[in-house]
């Protein structure tokens, strides 16, 4: 059993060089934009630097020593990912550029082969654009239909609507975010996958927000596809992961054709490589995959259950504090246990971009805008929200600084 003690945040902060940074003329940086991307510990930066300094070479083909070292390091990350999400087989893990590319891989490869005219793909109103646009492209191309499970005023998905959609024999795929990047809502994904499987419908889980922030077990969840990104979990940008159950992957056609994904190429035909290489055309992002390995070690060392505990605690603290600020409208589930470390809100008639500018002057980095979730913004009837999002290195003192900056904004706007 992993020890359940609270995180030693002070010690963790020492591992992140950027957190020492001053911004806006000497203000201590308070970084609360972790749902967009997280900061990187020195171990990750060092791993990338070590690769380029000591064994930079292309993988899988050359026989020289450095190529072998690079291949081993790259493939070790794949094994670490399989272990991290408890995949049954390492060859179920495919490297992509990011979550977006992972979902596009499924829509172009699996979707093109399995979705036809009149069929339906079911998503929800809380989806990020990366889990909307690929399905719009696919359904428009095929003459199929996209259906949205609605979200209620507290930020929960409407399960009756989901049940109603599943009753249609035309549904070919369900694709859902496990955690909303705006509302923080954690959806009852296991239950929803079970309901879908009872009708024989496969499920893709967008884990971009969930995998970095809570324990995720793909076998227990029983999802058919899962996508997530390294950069939202201490790793570098440019590395995404697609998990696909082997029996599904074996039937899928390649997404990107080219080098490394082949066994033999002749003038008019090609024999594709084995899994998972069949889906990794071209020289991959070797350095950053190796860097991601160091990020996974760092998180595994802490333990994802403790990461989650810390975020519940800090989110609850932030929710309690912000509720006391006059003029604030909060979005998403009221209970910190039903949401990730994300607090979205508006205050009076201050536009989120104005608020973010005022916060920035005080060293506080928050996100403002539609968060790549314009369908949800329309549903909430707002053009934008402000969002503070937390990770393992955030402290209650930082939340206090953020709340003080909110009060400053109220003063400037005479609210």
């Amino acid at each position, binding site marked *: 059993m992993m020890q359940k003690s609270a995180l030693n945040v002070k010690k963790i902060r020492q591992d992140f060089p950027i957190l020492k940074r001053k911004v806006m003329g000497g203000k201590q940086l308070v970084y609360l934009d972790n749902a967009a991307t997280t900061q990187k510990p020195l171990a990750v930066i060092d791993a990338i630097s070590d690769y380029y300094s000591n064994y930079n070479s292309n993988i899988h083909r050359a026989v020289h020593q450095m190529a072998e070292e690079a291949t081993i390091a790259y493939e070790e990350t794949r094994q670490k990912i399989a272990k991290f999400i408890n995949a049954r087989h390492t060859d179920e893990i495919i490297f992509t550029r990011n979550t977006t590319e992972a979902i596009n891989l499924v829509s172009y490869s699996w979707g093109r082969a399995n979705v036809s005219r009149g069929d339906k793909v079911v998503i929800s109103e809380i989806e990020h654009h990366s889990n909307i646009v690929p399905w719009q492209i696919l359904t428009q191309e095929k003459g199929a239909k996209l259906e949205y499970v609605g979200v209620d005023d507290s930020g929960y998905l409407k399960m009756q609507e989901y049940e109603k959609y599943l009753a249609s024999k035309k549904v070919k795929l369900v694709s859902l975010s496990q955690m909303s990047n705006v509302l923080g809502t954690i959806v009852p994904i296991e239950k929803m996958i079970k309901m879908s499987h009872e009708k024989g419908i496969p499920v893709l889980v967008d884990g971009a927000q969930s995998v970095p922030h809570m324990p995720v077990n793909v076998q227990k969840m029983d999802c058919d596809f899962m996508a997530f990104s390294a950069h939202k979990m201490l790793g570098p940008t440019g590395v995404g992961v697609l998990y696909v159950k082997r029996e599904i992957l074996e039937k899928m056609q390649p997404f990107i054709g080219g080098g490394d994904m082949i066994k033999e190429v002749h003038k008019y035909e090609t024999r594709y490589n084995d899994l998972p290489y069949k889906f990794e055309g071209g020289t991959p992002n070797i350095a950053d995959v190796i860097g991601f390995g160091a990020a996974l070690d760092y998180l595994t060392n802490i333990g994802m259950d403790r990461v989650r505990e810390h975020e519940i605690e800090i989110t609850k603290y932030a929710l309690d504090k912000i509720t006391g600020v006059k003029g604030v409208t909060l979005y998403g589930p009221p209970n910190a246990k039903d949401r990730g470390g994300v607090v979205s809100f508006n205050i009076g008639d201050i536009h989120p*971009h*104005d608020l973010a*500018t005022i916060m920035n002057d005080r060293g506080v980095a928050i996100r403002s*805008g539609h968060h790549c979730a314009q369908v949800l913004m329309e549903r909430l009837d707002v*053009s934008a929200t402000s969002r503070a999002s937390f990770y393992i290195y955030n402290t209650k003192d930082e939340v206090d600084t953020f709340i003080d900056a909110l009060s400053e904004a109220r003063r400037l*706007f005479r609210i």
Partner: protein
Amino acid sequence: MSDDIYREIILDHYRNPRNKGKISSPDVSIHDSNPLCGDEIDIHLKVEGDKIKDIKFEGRGCAISQASASMLTEMVMNKPLTSVKDMTKDDILEEIGLTSLGPARIKCALLSLKVLKLGMVKYYADRDDPDSAKKLQDDTRSL
């Protein structure tokens, strides 16, 4: 710094925008948005002779984008088209008093001018004046 941005005049134009609304049968209507922020501006124009007879805007977004749109309409109302054609980003930034915005927020301040210029691209293109249309189109690229 944000104390300098959110001055009384900006908040006044944000909360009490001038020339906001529609025009019946406008000569040009044009819409654009700032993907960074999601700010949206529609501009409607009525032209008489070589003058802007009426200008109205609709939109939603941050205080900077909406206040600058409001002030822009006051700047160009009843002005000759040529003066809009020659208007630069510095003209509007000086008028609204925001000359030290960073690269992100400056887009908010310039959105309305971009929309107005795009509207005039359409106006000139419809009236067989490709040279003016091209000049204005080029202007919008730097906004």
